[in-house]
């Protein structure tokens, strides 16, 4: 509830139970505070209210006052008389007012719910066995909870188009659509790509795409998430796995510095899909389509899954030992990355400090979309600043490093995932130097590496990122990594141990003990107590930096 104290809350009565709720919310949200559910289809907390499904019908009354004098009208027992509205009203468009009474379980409400359910099911196909929504379908759930339990309909059901391709990633089954218009409103209000609409009338109403258009914007899969039924389905996930087999793990999208909160859905070590996780301070309930594809990197062909020394397979210990030997040349440098978690950046910084090695970071700035894809395509640039791995923003090219390599000032590089060729370092320079590559995907740099230290993807390890609003967010391991690989934290910790001979942190909790004791911004934080909705950190020291991000869904640049 709100931090601003109780005085802001208003008292209402849900089924005669008194609850205090924030003002201005609607009855559906208010009922949740009383632990009551008002079933609904068309209402979505992040979209406008249209009130077209009628599933949220309830009874409502307000304390009565005399129209002329404004004095409260009292019952005989001394309580204020409640003026019940004689007909049911819809909860989604009923904004609560002080003293309001609502009934969610009366006989009238039950009758309404049964009636609405019956009409919704009149033309609904018997598709649950082949419908991807089964198991997370509001129609199934409410039919069980609020339906009458049997069908009285003996006429023939309407036939509508099935298996329609709406766009490259979304498939539509019109028979299952309950015409809630959530998907249409999402296109109009959030994605601002208004391509969906209803055609025809009455029970023949059909969702369709405007002619000559496709549902192909980068947020199209959100319509699949918010579709309460199985009408809109993800073409990628279609028929892959039943949702009841899938385990949900909270994670963070690494596509950009927005740090979209996600759920990773996996079964027995295989990821099947990624969906957004609601976080009102970061991404509301949305995410990009492109970010949902990232799970494919786990089993990509380019995946690195073996430790190598000079192209020959080695075991982890030997590879780390060799890496430490090479790094100790006294002329080494580190190319760090905003893809590394806060913990990994800290250990990288420890290694750099010990070796007295300069740290370089490359910028990956692209055009943002003003919504959930920011200009900085690194999820953790701010983590690198907070851990003092770097003090300035990442550079466009690594030409400074290239010069030092030419002059012989630097002959050994520890590279975290970056492809140096793309950053202005030539093949000859790479060949001349000793390159230690730590990353998950192969590139032309990893192919030339003297020591290959394969890392784990964000889905296979624990860690945290700091997003563009300086919110510290943690991700958790969803699936085990490939056999023989160790978490990057352990890898860097062992490397540091080899270099210094001291005891070094090799797990996330010991790293956080050091982080919280060394940096004021992290004081009092341990990995376990980072809340799932993230923790805002103090970014005041970095306001003078010229971050590339422009305004997006939850971000307003300080410098503009």
């Amino acid at each position, binding site marked *: 509830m709100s931090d601003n104290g109780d005085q802001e809350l208003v008292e209402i009565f849900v089924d005669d139970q008194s609850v205090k709720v924030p003002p201005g919310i609607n009855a559906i949200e208010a009922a949740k505070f009383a632990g009551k559910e008002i079933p609904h289809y068309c209402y979505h907390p992040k979209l406008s209210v249209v009130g077209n499904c009628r599933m949220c019908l309830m009874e409502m009354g307000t304390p009565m006052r005399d129209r002329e004098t404004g004095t409260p009208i009292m019952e005989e027992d001394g309580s204020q008389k409640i003026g019940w509205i004689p007909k049911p009203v819809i909860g989604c468009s009923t904004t609560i007012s002080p003293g309001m009474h609502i009934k969610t379980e009366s006989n009238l409400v039950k009758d309404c719910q049964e009636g609405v359910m019956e009409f919704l099911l009149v033309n609904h196909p*018997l598709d*649950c*066995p082949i419908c991807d929504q089964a198991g997370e379908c509001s129609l199934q759930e409410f039919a069980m909870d609020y339906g009458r339990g049997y069908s009285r309909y003996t006429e023939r*059901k*309407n*036939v509508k188009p*099935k*298996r329609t391709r709406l766009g490259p990633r979304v498939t539509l089954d019109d028979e299952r659509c309950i015409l809630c218009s959530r998907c249409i409103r999402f296109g109009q209000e959030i994605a601002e790509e208004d391509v969906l609409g209803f055609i025809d009338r009455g029970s*023949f109403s059909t969702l369709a795409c405007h002619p000559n258009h496709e549902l192909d914007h980068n947020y199209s899969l959100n319509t699949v998430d918010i579709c309460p039924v199985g009408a809109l389905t993800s073409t990628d996930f279609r028929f892959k796995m*039943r949702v009841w087999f899938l385990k949900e793990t909270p994670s963070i999208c690494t596509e950009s510095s927005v740090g979209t909160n996600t759920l990773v859905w996996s079964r027995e070590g295989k990821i099947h899909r990624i969906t957004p996780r609601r976080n009102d301070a970061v991404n509301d309930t949305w995410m990009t389509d492109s970010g949902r594809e990232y799970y494919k990197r786990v089993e990509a062909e380019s995946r690195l899954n073996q430790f190598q020394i000079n192209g020959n397979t080695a075991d982890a210990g030997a590879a780390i030992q060799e890496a430490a030997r090479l790094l100790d040349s006294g002329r080494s440098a580190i190319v760090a990355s905003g893809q590394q978690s806060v913990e990994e950046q800290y250990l990288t910084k420890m290694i750099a400090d010990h070796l007295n090695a300069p740290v370089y970071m490359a910028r990956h700035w692209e055009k943002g979309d003003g919504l959930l894809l920011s200009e900085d395509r690194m999820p953790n640039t701010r983590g690198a600043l907070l851990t003092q791995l770097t003090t300035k923003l990442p550079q466009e090219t690594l030409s400074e490093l290239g010069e030092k390599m030419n002059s012989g000032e630097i002959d050994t590089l520890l590279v975290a995932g970056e492809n140096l060729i793309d950053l202005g370092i030539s093949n000859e320079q790479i060949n001349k130097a000793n390159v230690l590559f730590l990353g998950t995907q192969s590139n032309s740099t990893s192919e030339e590496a003297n020591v290959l230290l394969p890392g784990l993807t964000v889905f296979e390890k624990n860690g945290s990122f700091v997003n563009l609003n300086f919110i510290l967010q943690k991700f958790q391991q969803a699936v085990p990594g490939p056999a023989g690989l160790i978490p990057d934290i352990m890898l860097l910790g062992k490397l540091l141990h080899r270099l210094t001979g001291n005891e070094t942190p090799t797990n996330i909790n010991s790293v956080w003990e050091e982080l919280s004791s060394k940096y004021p911004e992290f004081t009092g934080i341990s990995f376990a107590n980072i809340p799932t909705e993230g923790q805002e950190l103090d970014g005041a020291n970095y306001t003078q930096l010229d971050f590339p991000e422009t305004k997006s869904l939850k971000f307003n640049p300080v410098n503009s």
Partner: protein
Amino acid sequence: MPGKTKVLERKPLSIAERTYLPQIVTGLKTTLSNLFGKTVTREYPEQPPPIPDGYRGVPTLVKDPNGREKCVSCQLCEFVCPPKAIRITPGLIEEESEDAHVEKGPEEFEINMLRCIYCGLCQEVCPEEAIWLQNIYSVSGYTREEFINNKQTLYELGGTLPDEHLKWDKKKSAEDEGNPHH
């Protein structure tokens, strides 16, 4: 030695007893009466037992009378199976197929008969009446792999069962005829 010991005097055997003949005759009578009486045992395995209705033998997959595979890979049986004997890889039915209107069918379907406990829950839960525990009760093999029935084996064992509903045929004809529009 402590305790009392009483020595019994053994009686001499009579002639009848010494020849054993009465005993043999009694024994033979029993044998002969069973030899020519009603048979109570079965010549298993040459003579298989009659299988009662509702018998729960090896689970199999069946086709409908038109030869369409009934399973739509909804994976409910996989979910309900207590010992996790079932493994399904769901698949898409291509649009060119005759059964395109069914949209979904199993790409692979495996039942591990080393795990199966013949509980019949898969048959009970199946919304398509596609999986049936029929009358095969004796399963043998030399390797573990032989006990894993794949989709092909399951259909060979299952054969065709009569179908009262023909749900998908009705669906198809509704699609072809449609409901009057406007």
